[in-house]
Each structure stands twice: as C-alpha cells, then as structure tokens.
C-alpha cells in the first residue's frame, strides 16, 4: 500500500490487479470529487468516474511516466468530462444547492457563520465563471493540482493557466463586491 503511484502503475501494466485496486483506492475520491463538482450530481459523477478508470485501464500500456499518474488520470477525466458535456449540453450557471448544504454540514474549515456564508456564495460564483476559467479553478484550487499539472491536464500553456486564474479571481472579486454579497 505504500508504493508510489508510478510503481503501482508499472505493476498494473504487467497485469497486477491488486496494484490497479490500490490505484483506485488512491485516486477514486479525487476523480469522483472532480466530476461531482463539475457535474453537480452524484449519478453523473459516478458514471464519469467509471468511464475514466475504464479508459485509464485500457490506456495503461501507453502511460510512459512523463507526467505524474495524478496528472494523467485527471487528463483522462477532463476529456471524459468534455465528451459528456458535449453530448449532454448541461445548462450553464444552474444554481447548485449542494455547495450550500455541503458547506453547512460536518466540520467546517470556516470559523463563523458569516465566513461560511461568504464561502458558499463564492463557490456558487465559481460555477458562473466561463467554461475555461471554471475548469482551471476546479483543477488548481479544488483538486489541488499545480499550475504545470493543470496546464498538462488541459493541454494548454502555463501562461494561459495563470491568465485564466487571474481573470477568474478578478471576476470573483468584482462579483463578490456586488450589493448582495456586501449585504451578506
């Protein structure tokens, strides 16, 4: 269980099912969370997670270790998400109550109710960002990928990632300054 993902990957390539199972244990939560935040429902997130890992197992021989396994699996997941979005064409900017319930449940990283409320509204504003900026925010801030890893997943330049992040933060800042947020 202490093996690095790349070693597990090598073993899985050789047909080791246990190694593949360990990889699942390591990454299924992050992949599921990625889809859950993007798709906004459990069913689609489960479905896309399943598809992502199916493709990963099929493409395992082509994984050459040039990027980390995390980046690689996020890349596959991103393409799966793009295909899903193209077919399903979900309505953009739809309000997601899950963020509010999520933030309100369990042990919260936020100290008081006011801060929790503010965070809830920021998360809702993220979902209203443009597609490219929204995905960059998800990968970099929610999934915890570095700038370089985000760029690798989206197959864009790091400068583009930085540009989109700056734009996203600017949008969030300006929108959060609107009366509704200020009143909160």
């Amino acid at each position, binding site marked *: 269980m202490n093996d690095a993902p790349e070693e597990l990957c090598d073993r899985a390539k050789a047909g080791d099912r246990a190694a593949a199972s360990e990889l699942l244990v390591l990454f299924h939560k992050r992949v599921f969370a990625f889809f859950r935040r993007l798709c906004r429902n459990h069913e689609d997130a489960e479905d896309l997670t399943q598809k992502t890992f199916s493709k990963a197992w099929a493409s395992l021989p082509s994984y050459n270790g040039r990027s980390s396994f995390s980046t690689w699996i996020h890349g596959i997941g991103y393409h799966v998400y793009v295909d899903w979005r193209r077919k399903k064409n979900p309505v953009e900017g739809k309000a997601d109550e899950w963020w509010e319930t*999520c933030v309100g449940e369990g042990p919260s990283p936020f100290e008081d109710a006011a801060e929790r409320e*503010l965070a809830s509204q*920021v998360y809702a504003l993220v979902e209203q960002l443009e597609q490219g900026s929204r995905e960059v925010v998800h990968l970099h801030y929610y999934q915890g990928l570095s700038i370089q890893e985000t760029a690798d997943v989206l197959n864009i330049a790091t400068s583009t990632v930085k540009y989109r992040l700056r734009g996203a933060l600017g949008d969030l800042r300006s929108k959060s300054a609107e009366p509704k947020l200020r009143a909160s």
Partner: protein
Amino acid sequence: MNDEKLEEILRKSPRVIVPPGVLDHLQSQICLPSAAPSRADSFDARPWLRRWLPALSFAAFFVTCLVAIGIQVSILSELKRQNEALRISTQGISPLRAANEEYKRLQAQGQELERLRKDYSDLKRLRAEVGQLRGQLPEVEKLRADNQRLTTEIAARSGKSDPGEKPNDDFFAEAQAKAERIQCVNNLKQIGLAGRIWAGDNNDRFPLDFLSMTNELNTPVILKCPADKARSVTNWAEVAAGNVSYQMDAPGSSEAENPDTVFVECPIHHNLLLIDGSVQQTSLEFLSTHLKVVNGRKVLVR
C-alpha cells in the same frame, strides 16, 4: 475581498463524500489489458499487410523502376536498330543522287537541243524571206527610178523647178519628222508642268536649271529632243554635264511675269515653252519677227 482571501476560500472547498459502494463497483470493473508484449511480439502481432507494407511499397517502386528501365532500353535498342537501317539505306543513295544529276543534265541538254531546233527553223524561215526580198530588190529599184522620173515630170509641168530644194522622195521621213516635232512639243509640255510644280514649292519662281527638277521630271530622257540625233540622254549625270537638247531662256523667272516670256525653247524645231505653261510651234522666220527681248527675257509678241 482581496485575492488572498478568495484563494484561501477556494482552497478550503468542501470535501466531497464518495457514496459507499463506488469503490467496490470500480474495483469490480478493473479490466487490465494483457501483459505488455515485447517489442518483437508487438511487431509480430501487427497485421500481415501492415508489417510488410513498407517492404512491399519499396518492392513495388523497385519493380516499377525496373520495368521503366526495361521499356526505355527496349525503345533505345529499337531506335538504334532503325538508325542502323537508315544508315545502311543511305549508303545506296549516292549512286541515285549521281543518276539524278545525270538525268537533270540530260534534261537540260534536251531543252537546249529543242531550243536550237527552233532557232534553226526560224533561221531557215528568215533565209527564205531574205531570198524572196532579194528577188524583189530589182523591182524596187525599178519603181524608185519610175518615181524619180515622174517627180521630175511633175516639176517640169508645174514650172517650179527649185534647184536648192531637195526632192522629198521619202514620205516616211516626213512623217517621222512630224512625229518628232510633236514629241518635242510633248517634252516641252512636260518640262513646263515640272517647272510650274517646282515653282509652286519655291515661291512661284521657276528653277535656274534642268537639274533642279529631278524630283519633278519622271525621266531625263525628255530633256532630249527626238530630232537631236547627236545626243543621248539616259541619266541625270549626263544632264549635269550639260548634255541637254533644250535651251532654258528664262531661268529663275517668276510666274508673275509676262506670261508670253519664253522659258524653254527647242533650237531644232523652234518650239517655245512659255512661262504660262503653253507650247508654241514656231519657225525661224516667225521668230525673227515675233520674238523680242524685254528686260533680258525673250518675249513672244503675238
């Protein structure tokens, strides 16, 4: 809210709880590909056509090249053979060429012979005519004697015997003299026309000499009177040398002058070209009474 606060909130995004059973479901669906084959195995695993495609392509190209070279060699050998055949055939062409030359020479000789035959027949015909005319010669002599006798008789009967006057025994000579006089008048008319054209381009003044009218006169031949047997004018060089029958009496005269001023005259026939362009046929006796000199110009007084 500043960017640091925003980033802090974003990084503290709520954790997503994976529903129970998802991991089990995913683990049950693990479907790993068979163990990665070696390079040699993967090469063998490819379809036959894909494995052999490069070699087959090269082989096809090579065979195409060979076929093209073969066709070209075949064409080349055929051309060589044709060239050799043509070379052999040209060896026999020189006798043919010589025979052709001989044929042409004989043909030319035949034409020459034909021409000579024709000339000979003409010669024979002319000889016959000469013989016939010689036979008529005594008769002509007799007729001439009769003519002279009759003329003498006519003169004796009319009582106008003039020993200084030559008997005009040749009608044709008289007719020829008349024709020459008319031709002389014609020449003077052409000279007059040329002079007036020249004057039209030179302030209405006639030329100073005949040589000035080389552009206006068609030919220098008209500057010779047909009765002037001592001269022969065929080109302008002879005109420049003064070899002209006619005499220019009023060189450089103006058209505004007396229209009866004599411009050119014929010393043989005494024909006068006046500056008005008219030609007057006169005689020596007429001129002695009607030709005056006014201001250095000969003027015809009518």
